[in-house]
């Protein structure tokens, strides 16, 4: 192919060098796996952040099908100093989607590495490649009639376990803390070597997917939300499907109930009476996923008034807070735990239980029940229809599972969002002792003024939460550097020291979680 003029280039790379690199990618991967045309790259440039698309435009996208090809891609990137942003299924909606951290990075799309390598029904373990989706795994389990169930994030069907776990995503079952359930990784390092964590380096070992720690330093966590290697295989644990799953909801009528809800839930959760990642969802989250749009109630700009929230609550039979839990086990176990839960609720003196039978197949109960039972669905995408316009950023601060803390976070978040004319569309996901407070900052990207407000709002959320000792656990690519600062200079220096040692050419996903040798100066 003759040399062409590439519209977007990696920083510091000349047209001629880039063309040589592209030719080498073609020789390695085949023409059909090297994308450079604008129409081929545009789908990789779809963002939901308050940035111009051009700031996140890739220079090329390549797809690999084997570990050896990934090694080859890394080698070429090193040779030409080309930064590479890796995606697995690429469904990181609201956290940057598939677009690279910054303009000019090439995308390494691992969607074609989609083999389910092993599922052990007795041990409840799986080993998969990056492109495997939860739907694919679900179908495999169904087709083979395996007594297993999955835990996944809300974009379940189209997302994948490897990508979600590597970004430390969460689900809604007892196995909802996905990184906790991860067991064994294979990574291609920046120098091209293949490293396996845990027991994976032992010749002939069979314990890679059952024993996390191996020998000496355990490094798995270092590769998550990071840019020290490209994960090409990941093992994780699957829950054995119990004879009974009993999903239920508890509705609370007042937004001021949040502190009492958390105090009520915490002992039940810590003691595994309610074993799953419980969700405490606000009214707008639930309304959106039930098909309500803001324009159904008002066309006035700005934050939606509380009177309308109350009206939606009434019209759609929702709580101000909607708590979703499930019990799992034998009929006897479930009965015992059900009695404990209902007894505790009676003692609390507020809250209305809705069982699956009472919900009668209505939304949002049905999709919540599916998420807690390991059945994929896409219902939660309804959030994007609440306000419309394509803007979405997850603001996800962590807190202790204590009522006063959650009350404080909720009040602060709502105040800041409303000040900027945006709505609180949020939920708390209850870990064992923590809360992932997940808020979808929804705004209209067709409106430049609203987009500016959303950007200012997100910055203020980060600033004000940080002043009170809170930080987010995950963020979109626009704010990664800012959030890295929240965690202090020592952590940043250590992370960059590691980066320098493992990836001196800074080719693997520069910018991920604020780690970028070209920008970091605080040595």
């Amino acid at each position, binding site marked *: 192919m003759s040399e062409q003029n590439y519209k977007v280039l990696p920083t510091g790379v000349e047209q001629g060098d880039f063309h040589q690199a592209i030719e080498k990618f073609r020789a390695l991967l085949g023409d059909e796996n090297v994308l450079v045309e604008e*129409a081929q790259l545009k789908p990789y440039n*779809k963002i939901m952040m308050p940035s111009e698309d051009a700031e996140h435009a890739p220079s090329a996208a390549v797809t690999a099908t084997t570990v050896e090809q990934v090694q080859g891609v890394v080698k070429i990137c090193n040779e030409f100093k080309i930064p590479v942003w890796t995606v697995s299924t690429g469904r990181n909606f609201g956290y940057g989607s598939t677009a690279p951290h910054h303009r000019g990075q090439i995308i390494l799309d691992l969607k074609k590495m989609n083999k389910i390598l092993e599922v052990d029904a007795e041990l409840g373990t799986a080993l998969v490649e990056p492109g495997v989706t939860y739907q694919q795994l679900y179908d495999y389990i169904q087709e083979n009639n395996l007594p297993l169930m999955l835990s996944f994030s809300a974009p379940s069907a189209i997302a994948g376990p490897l990508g979600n776990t590597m970004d430390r995503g969460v689900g809604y079952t007892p196995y909802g803390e996905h990184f906790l359930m991860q067991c064994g990784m294979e990574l291609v390092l920046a120098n091209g070597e293949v490293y396996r964590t845990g027991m994976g380096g032992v010749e002939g070992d069979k314990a890679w997917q059952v024993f996390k720690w191996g020998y000496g330093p355990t490094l798995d966590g270092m590769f998550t939300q990071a840019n020290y290697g490209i994960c090409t295989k990941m093992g994780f644990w699957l829950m054995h499907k119990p004879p009974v799953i009993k999903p239920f909801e508890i509705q609370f009528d007042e937004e001021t109930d949040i502190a009492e809800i958390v105090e009520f839930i915490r002992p039940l959760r810590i003691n595994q009476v309610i074993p799953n990642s419980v969700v405490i969802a606000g009214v707008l989250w639930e309304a959106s996923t039930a098909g309500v749009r803001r*324009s159904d109630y008002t066309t006035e700009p700005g934050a939606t008034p509380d009177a309308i929230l109350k009206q939606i609550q009434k019209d759609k039979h929702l709580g101000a807070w909607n708590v979703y839990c499930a019990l799992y086990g034998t009929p006897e176990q479930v009965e015992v735990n059900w009695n404990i839960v209902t007894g505790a609720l009676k003692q609390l003196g507020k809250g209305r239980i809705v069982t699956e039978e009472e919900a009668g197949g209505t939304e949002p109960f049905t999709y919540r029940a599916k998420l807690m039972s390991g059945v994929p669905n896409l219902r939660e995408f309804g959030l994007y229809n609440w306000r419309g316009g*394509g803007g979405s950023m997850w603001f996800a601060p962590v807190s202790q599972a204590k009522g006063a803390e959650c009350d404080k976070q909720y009040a602060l978040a709502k105040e800041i969002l409303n000040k900027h004319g945006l709505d609180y569309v949020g939920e708390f996901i209850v870990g064992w002792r923590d809360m992932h407070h997940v808020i979808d900052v929804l705004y209209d990207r067709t409106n430049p003024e609203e987009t500016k407000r959303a950007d200012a709002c997100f910055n203020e959320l980060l600033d004000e939460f940080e002043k009170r000792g809170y930080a987010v656990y995950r963020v979109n690519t626009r704010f990664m550097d800012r959030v890295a600062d929240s965690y202090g200079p020592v952590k940043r220096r250590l992370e960059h020291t590691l980066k320098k040692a493992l990836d001196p050419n800074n080719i693997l996903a520069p910018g991920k979680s604020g780690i970028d040798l070209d920008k970091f100066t605080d040595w």
Partner: protein
Amino acid sequence: MSIERRSVLKGMALGGLAGLTLGQAGLASAGQAAEAVTRKPLLVLVSGAEAEAVFAGGALAHPAAGHATVLRTDHGLEFISALQQRLKASSGERIIGLVDDASGTLILDLARSAGARLHWSGQHVTEGGQSRHRLSVTPDTAACGHQFMALSEGCATPSATEDLILAASHQWVPALGFALASPEPGRRYLRATPPTQAAALTGHYVSFSIET
């Protein structure tokens, strides 16, 4: 130029989606068409009856929209899975649409994972009798954008940026369908125009032009 006129019949089966979606939505689709130019099949995706009538009406008014099928989308797993299979299996199909934000987010990402080309994506809002549009187009479809602007009532000339943000009146949907339906963006067809009398859609929409 030889002219052929044909109708795309209600419930016409086309690929894996048709049985599912046409059956579910009970969607009527009708088209009229041309002609000698070799055309790729055109699939028109819409969310809801209003968009179906107005956007698809604009698309099907285009003389080159001949082999068109109109499908009503949703963001349910059944539809999305069927669309995913179709995107992966088909080659040389054009898919245009005007759908809600949730469906649009999913469809555009499915296009990426299927390796399809995305020539055009747009976010559109109509409120208070005015509309706003944020467009992202490839150079190949720039003419399509100009046609949309020319045909949309009261459309302001945009500033020249990569992401076009422009304003128009509430009557823009038939023009968009008409412009995206063209297999040769910018080519002029004598006497062909989108319908001028159409219901004004309100709310938020996502548009796209995908090529498998």
